[in-house]
């Protein structure tokens, strides 16, 4: 069984908010500064910083100060754990099953 760590609880809490989900979706298309993220939501920089801090604490987003602006990036897949991969293989097995005989 999967053991849920504190960081996973934080991740779920972070995902409970629609703005933060939209931020993750936006970051899926590439990194962005806090102001670039705040603008489409009509949000203040302070408000967006709070959202980003929660996403950072949930280990979903990393930020880096570049000059005077803070750039936000999705945590990359570089160190994907083996258990994530095994769950993906389960999904792969389902696709193999579903498409069997169809070609």
């Amino acid at each position, binding site marked *: 069984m999967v053991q849920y*760590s504190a960081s996973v609880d934080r991740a779920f809490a972070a995902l409970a908010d629609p703005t933060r989900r939209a931020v*993750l979706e936006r970051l899926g298309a590439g990194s962005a500064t806090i102001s670039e993220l705040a603008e489409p939501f009509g949000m203040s920089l302070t408000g967006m910083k709070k959202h980003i801090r929660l996403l950072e604490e949930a280990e979903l987003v990393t930020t880096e100060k570049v000059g005077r602006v803070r750039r936000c990036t999705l945590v990359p897949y570089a160190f994907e754990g083996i258990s994530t991969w095994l769950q993906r293989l389960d999904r792969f097995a389902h696709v*193999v099953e579903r498409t069997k005989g169809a070609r």
Partner: protein
Amino acid sequence: MNETTVTKPSELEIRVERVFDAPRAHVFSVWTDPQLIPEWWGDGTVVEEMDVRAGGTYRFRTAFGVVQGEYHEVEPPERLVQTFQNHVQTLVFEDLGEQTRMTQTMRFATTEERDTTMNYGVEEGAKGGFARIDEVLRKIAA
């Protein structure tokens, strides 16, 4: 659901073995079909590039970031060597008649990197959690 085994054949490697209930050519074709990638990589995954031949590259934009690599050897339906982010994967598809055994060997540059991948999710539970989040995001996207 068939059992998956995970072993550490050397200081730099992780090996994943699994048997699928389908002929080898089919398993290989599903693995290399860009149209089916979003189904097992998570809804919302966009295949930006997938040129399945030696020297070709792939690039998927997933819910959690970009995944990319290069194909080194492509020998349907039995062998595929590709880079995946920070490591090299060798996939061997073994013909068992109506079943196929897939052996996936991941080779890392250092034992630390190997152990990071091995331990994430297994001991910390963190990455298992990310897989759960992936499921949540798929439901949100649906």
